[in-house]
């Protein structure tokens, strides 16, 4: 989805550039907080750059993992959801922005004048949608590790078609040629729901694996880690104060229910875009949309958490081909997760393996 030069007209490119620059500026400030103090004490703000660079490198690496999607197309990971969940939304935006910048310069992947568009679509939109949905789900689901992995699956799944929709939106406004936007949208979102499944599986597996051995590294699951205890001379002492949390395995039923709920949420979300008529996507509306994003950034802090939810709340649960594909895919995937969990359970003995693979 790396947009080349000359694809989107100048005003929209500039507007997207402004959005991207604003998002990066806000993120620069936010990132210091997110990466400041985690597991290793005594090492402070100088951690920001290395750890963000590390995640960026990882995103870079997984973006090269192409996986085949139906009918001869192949997709690659966007990584926005993964980055946001692992290191937090601000750092997530920075990571994706840096990845896109370097891809543009070093691999000519994505045009230099389209950098703003690319960062907005693949960085800002994916991160906001994914992290918003993720936080929302984590808040409503039971506070367990499995909820975190399920939420990351859903967040990643939705973030990809959302980016595709955002791209189509930009193209509708700033594309240099009139194409039937409705069918482009359907095609884009439809294909990207499929790509989203790949993204979701990899994101979920990665988050799950990290959660199993280094829960302290998952930004989105802070507070889920049990407090560290030290035994000194027979007594148990707290190593460092941490919020208490309950970590218990969720029942497969809950997992399945979550899958179903996610499917509906997804359906609403996707059909919201899919059913929007091409005529409805007028310049004004889109400009409003961009303004809204800018506002959200200016307000930065917690509203991120509500962003995705808000969108879902007023989404119309109407039809549309993409929506149908979305529901179908999610129900299948959710059921798959359910069966996988149940089978591994039946296998017995390897709880850690379950955690790391589900």
């Amino acid at each position: 989805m790396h947009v080349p030069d000359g694809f989107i007209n100048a005003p929209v490119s500039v507007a997207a550039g402004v959005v991207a620059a604003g998002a990066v500026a806000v993120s620069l400030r936010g990132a210091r907080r997110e990466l400041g103090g985690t597991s290793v004490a005594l090492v402070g703000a100088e951690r920001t750059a290395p750890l963000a660079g590390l995640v960026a490198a990882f995103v870079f690496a997984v973006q090269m993992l192409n996986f085949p999607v139906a009918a001869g197309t192949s997709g690659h990971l966007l990584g926005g959801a993964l980055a946001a969940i692992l290191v937090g939304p601000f750092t997530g935006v920075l990571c994706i922005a840096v990845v896109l910048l370097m891809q543009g310069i070093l691999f000519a992947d994505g045009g230099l004048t389209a950098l703003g568009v690319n960062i907005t679509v693949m960085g800002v939109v994916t991160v906001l949608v994914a992290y918003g949905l993720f936080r929302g789900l984590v808040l409503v689901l039971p506070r367990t590790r499995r909820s975190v992995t399920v939420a990351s699956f859903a967040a990643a799944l939705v973030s990809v078609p959302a980016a595709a929709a955002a791209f189509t939106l930009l193209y509708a406004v700033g594309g240099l040629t009139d194409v039937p936007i409705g069918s482009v949208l359907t095609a884009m979102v439809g294909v990207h729901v499929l790509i989203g499944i790949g993204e979701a599986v990899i994101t979920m597996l990665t988050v799950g694996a990290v959660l199993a051995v280094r829960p302290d590294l998952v930004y989105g699951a802070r507070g889920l880690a049990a407090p560290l205890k030290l035994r000194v001379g027979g007594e148990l002492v707290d190593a460092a104060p941490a919020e208490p949390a309950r970590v218990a395995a969720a029942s497969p039923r809950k997992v399945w229910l979550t899958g179903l709920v996610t499917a509906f949420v997804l359906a609403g979300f996707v059909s919201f875009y899919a059913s929007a008529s091409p005529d409805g996507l007028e310049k004004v509306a889109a400009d409003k949309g961009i303004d809204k994003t800018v506002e959200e950034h200016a307000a930065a802090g917690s509203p991120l958490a509500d962003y995705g939810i808000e969108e879902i709340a007023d989404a119309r649960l109407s039809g549309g081909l993409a929506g149908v594909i979305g529901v179908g895919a999610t129900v299948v995937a959710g059921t798959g997760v359910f069966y996988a969990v149940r089978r591994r359970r039946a296998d017995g003995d390897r709880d850690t393996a379950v955690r790391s693979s589900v």
Partner: protein
Amino acid sequence: MGAGHSHKLYRHGHSPVHALPAHCKLLAVLCFVLVVVSTPREAVWAFGVYAVLLAAVAAVARIPAGFALKRLLIEIPFVAFALLMPFVVPGERTEVLGVALSVPGLWGAWNILAKGTLGVAASVLLASTTELRSVLLGLQRLRLPSLLVQIASFMVRYGDVIADEMRRMSIARRSRGFEASGVRHWGVLAKSAGALFIRSYERGERVHLAMVSRGYTGTMPVLNDVRATAAQWSYAAALPVTALAVCLLGWTTS
């Protein structure tokens, strides 16, 4: 770490283009692409001139045509998109070899192909004549926020760490009789992706600690800083300025 030295696209050489400071080249390429993008698509000849300009730069930099052309393949997905346009875009039709094609669609396709290809070609030239580390230094000189530059330089360094970990894991798997040969093995590979993240992350953490142990405080010691002379600036400006002239001509004639 080897990537700190060079990267896949880089072609070692001693041409005048190689010798230009990276920030001059970055700015020149950016300006050039801006000019290209703002040229009216109807000025077909102008794009031809741009292509000739780039070819001239490639010749000066002694980049073989085959090398540069191969790198253009990155554009393929959008070429596919562009090729669809003449068929799906509504509007006036014209007959080409017996197929009815849309005129605005053809213009759209031409627009994307011409500008996109020139943009990619310019970036390819930049990448193949500039070392990775110079690119980073150049970004720094261009006043990109230093945190971003640092993230980028760590990304480059850790890119190697991750590639290394990936290679190690693959060797380890193979020497224990595993060949990824089909869908059956996706499970193993997917599991490896999670393990890869933790491994790379923890390796990165340890490398970072090693740096910290040796006095790293958040900025890399810059051992050799490059400043561009006026001559170098004017040399670098040659490309975008010529292009601008062409572009202005394009606006007046079309």
